[in-house]
């Protein structure tokens, strides 16, 4: 291990211990120091990366060394960047609404189009295709019955969850508005599927946290082993 690697390894060890101090001491200055240092370093790193990998190679350098056509094309993003800086000053912050509107509009259009073409339609087709036994390769392994059970289970879970989030009610005279009975019952079943999904997500989160802990302990053990301790 080189000296630089040793220094960085020692610094990593120190910061790891400071973070783990939260287990024993709770919220303490050592934990906060490590947390603040992480946040600061991460923010600074983002700024540097943005300037080094975005602004400089894609805006400033072409404006300096690029052709005239390239410069003209870059005038629009440059102007939008300058207008976006107006958001820092309350007096002229309204000027920054133009690039903000452009950013939000573009992001919304891309996201909605992607969600429609990449999630909604393919997922709907996937749910329906489970009943296509001819094209389902799982028929050979689990049989037709197994495939149908799987398809019905997924379909029932999907519909139950969708009905759980159905908040429409029917108004009746002199009676409080409430959902139809069959929707309420299916919605209760949808809660079951939602609980299972949340349980899986929580298990994944806990697993990810345990894995991070294991990685840190492994790092400490490896560090001390390399030191010969």
């Amino acid at each position: 291990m080189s000296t630089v690697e040793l220094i960085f390894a020692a610094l990593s060890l120190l910061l790891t211990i400071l973070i783990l101090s939260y287990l024993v001491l709770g919220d303490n200055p050592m934990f906060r120091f490590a947390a603040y240092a992480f946040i600061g370093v991460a923010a600074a790193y983002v700024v540097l990366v943005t300037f080094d990998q975005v602004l400089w190679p894609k805006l400033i350098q072409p404006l300096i060394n690029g052709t005239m056509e390239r410069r003209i094309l870059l005038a629009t993003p440059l102007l939008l960047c300058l207008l976006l800086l107006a958001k820092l000053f309350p007096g002229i912050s309204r000027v920054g609404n133009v690039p903000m509107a452009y950013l939000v509009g573009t992001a919304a259009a891309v996201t909605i189009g992607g969600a429609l073409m990449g999630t909604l339609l393919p997922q709907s087709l996937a749910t329906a295709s489970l009943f296509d036994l001819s094209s389902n390769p799982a028929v050979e392994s689990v049989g037709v019955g197994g495939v149908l059970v799987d398809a019905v289970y997924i379909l029932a879970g999907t519909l139950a969850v969708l009905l759980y989030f159905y908040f429409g009610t029917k108004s009746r005279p002199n009676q409080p508005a409430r959902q139809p009975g069959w929707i309420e019952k299916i919605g209760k079943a949808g809660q079951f599927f939602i609980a299972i999904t949340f349980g899986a997500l929580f298990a994944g989160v806990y697993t990810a946290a345990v894995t991070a802990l294991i990685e840190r302990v492994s790092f400490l053990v490896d560090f001390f082993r390399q030191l010969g301790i």
Partner: protein
Amino acid sequence: MEEIRCPMCSKLNPAENEECQYCNARLKPLVASAEGAGEQAGPQEGEDAPEWINRLAEFEDHSGDEPAKTAADQPAPAADTGPAEPGSWLARLQKDVEKYEESKADLPAVEPEFPASPAAGDSLPEWLRNVRQAANRDLVEPPLGVPVIEPGSSEEDAWLEKLRNQKFEPPEKPILDVNPDAGLVEPPAEPDWLHAFPDRKEESVEGEPAASAASGLPEWLSGGAPSTEPEAISDWNTGSQPVQPAEIPDWLGDETPSHPAEEQPVEEKPALPPGISTEPEVDKPDWLIELEAHAPQAPAPFPASPMLNFDQPPAGEVAARVENNFPAEELPDWLASFGPAASQAPAVDGTSAQAGDEHTGGEAAPADLPSWLRAMRPIETVAPSPAARRESDQREEKTGPLAGLRGTLPAEPSLASFQRPPSYIARLQPTENQERYKSIFEELIANEKEPQPTRAAGLISPQRLWRLIIAVLLLAAVVVPFVTGISFLPLPGLLPQETLDMQTAIDALPANAMVLVGVEYEPSLAGEMESAAAGVVDHLMKKGARLAVISTSPTGPALADRLFDQVTALPEDYHASYTGGEKLANLGYLAGGPAGLMDFVLRPQAAAPAMLDDGTSAWQQPALRGVNSLDDFSLFLLITDDQQSGRTWLEQIQPRTAANAPLLVVSSAQAAPVLSSYLDGRQVDGLTAGLAGGTIYEQLLQHPGPGTGRWQAFVLVMAVSLVVIILGTAVDLIMEYLAARKANAEA
């Protein structure tokens, strides 16, 4: 210093001022100068005038607020001052009578002091002598148009008998009884010297001859007084007290023969200046002629004063009788000329009002008050009083279809009336239950105020203790496998289908296949993601695929370098081409999130033009040589720890990939449940998640990696965690059961 009060603004001014120093109104009336001018023709005060007239003059001088003087203070035209002169002293006489009436009730009976009879002849003014002469002439020569009645004839007897039999009927209201609120004149009170006369009304009315002998009459009255004189005086006195002929001054007695006694109501004498006389000025007094000569121009008829404003019609019967018995032919010419003007001027007495009636067809024309006089009226006469408002409710509609109707609703009665909104006092009237709640609430507040004994804080709370215990257990479960090297559980033998599909997809890659690797995880989950992705990346390297790394996270490129460094750290021959950058190109950070990713899909060379390491053109490097579009990539590998970033890649990349280019996903354990749905939809061709998935993939490759080395710790920690969860749940259930049992026992 003597001061006088301005009649206009009521402010005090020095006596020598002729005009008010505040409003420039004239303080000394022009009449005063006229009097001065008339000293040559008329009797001088204190010298030739009777003493009682002097006293009246003095009284007038000191009564500055008298309406008559107020009117005289105005710059009246000189033409009006002539008639005003004889009227002024008569007006003073009226005022004297009024004042006497007002003080009569309080003062004891005092013997009236009659003024000495003025000296006949030179002391009389010329106009008065003319009057006397005209009267004497009228006695001899009847006026034109009047039939001559011979004395002792039947016609005379009938006329006289008619007058004698004509009983005086006092009017319902005095002739000058006008509404005081309207600023009109009170009925003339009897002067004190009239009260001294014995009551001879009955005799006068009955037409009996006067009881007084000629010797009893004074000298000034004894000259040719007709027998009807006492009757006339009694009628003029409205029957209250007959006037003793002996007490009438001689100067007045000279005039009485020309007028029947009953034709001299006191209201007639103060004939106020009615207007401009068109009669020859020979009949006017000299002082009047002189004043007219000094007048700049003939003004409009003298405006009505408040005391002349009649709102009510004159007492018709008496006034008509007086008018009939006081023909114009018997008046002096200059006085008779006032007749037409009097119809337009305000009616002062019944005579003038009657004259006005004749000219206006029986209706007395309402007098117009001048603006300066309206301004002087008391505010009470202008402001609507409640009574006036009630009267306004009965007003007559003048215009419109409701013309002639009374009591109609006004156009905007309520809009114009504003009043303070009523104020209501909201006083709570609590019920018994509210009172009970109030007492309970007060008890609660009182209990809160009492200090409660504080429980002694322990050195460490149970929650913190349990947290420490769990932390120690987990740390021990992690450390023990690394320290001891003991394998508590075997490596996973169950191979998920998605992991097998991933292996199959990578194995199907051709040599030098172009693979796009997306690194979309954060440093906090780098340990898990490196354990999960190390086997897959190593498999790609083993297949000799060219790797192009891109990330939409700023920290992604650095984490990618760290991942590849860990993978290539293992001593393998195929790693050499990746450490030199021949088959690995880190394109760095792709700004813009979904938009940047879409831009990369459409124009990869423009979206990520440079290498991360040296900034050189990435697409000229050996790793990316021959790649111009997204279709040139043979496989797409996404390494993500977040479902959102994974879904972005799936939504933006997957629909535009080639049909034969598989999309593989390496995710963290927390994102796997969501991304696995894309696996079921055939959008993802292979999936491996978390440390477990990485370990399984390493088992498939038979190439141990970081996942395999951490598997024992992972399994042990998960086992301890499971035990802790089970024990905690059991303890919680037991405590709840004990609490419920205790509660039941207490119940």
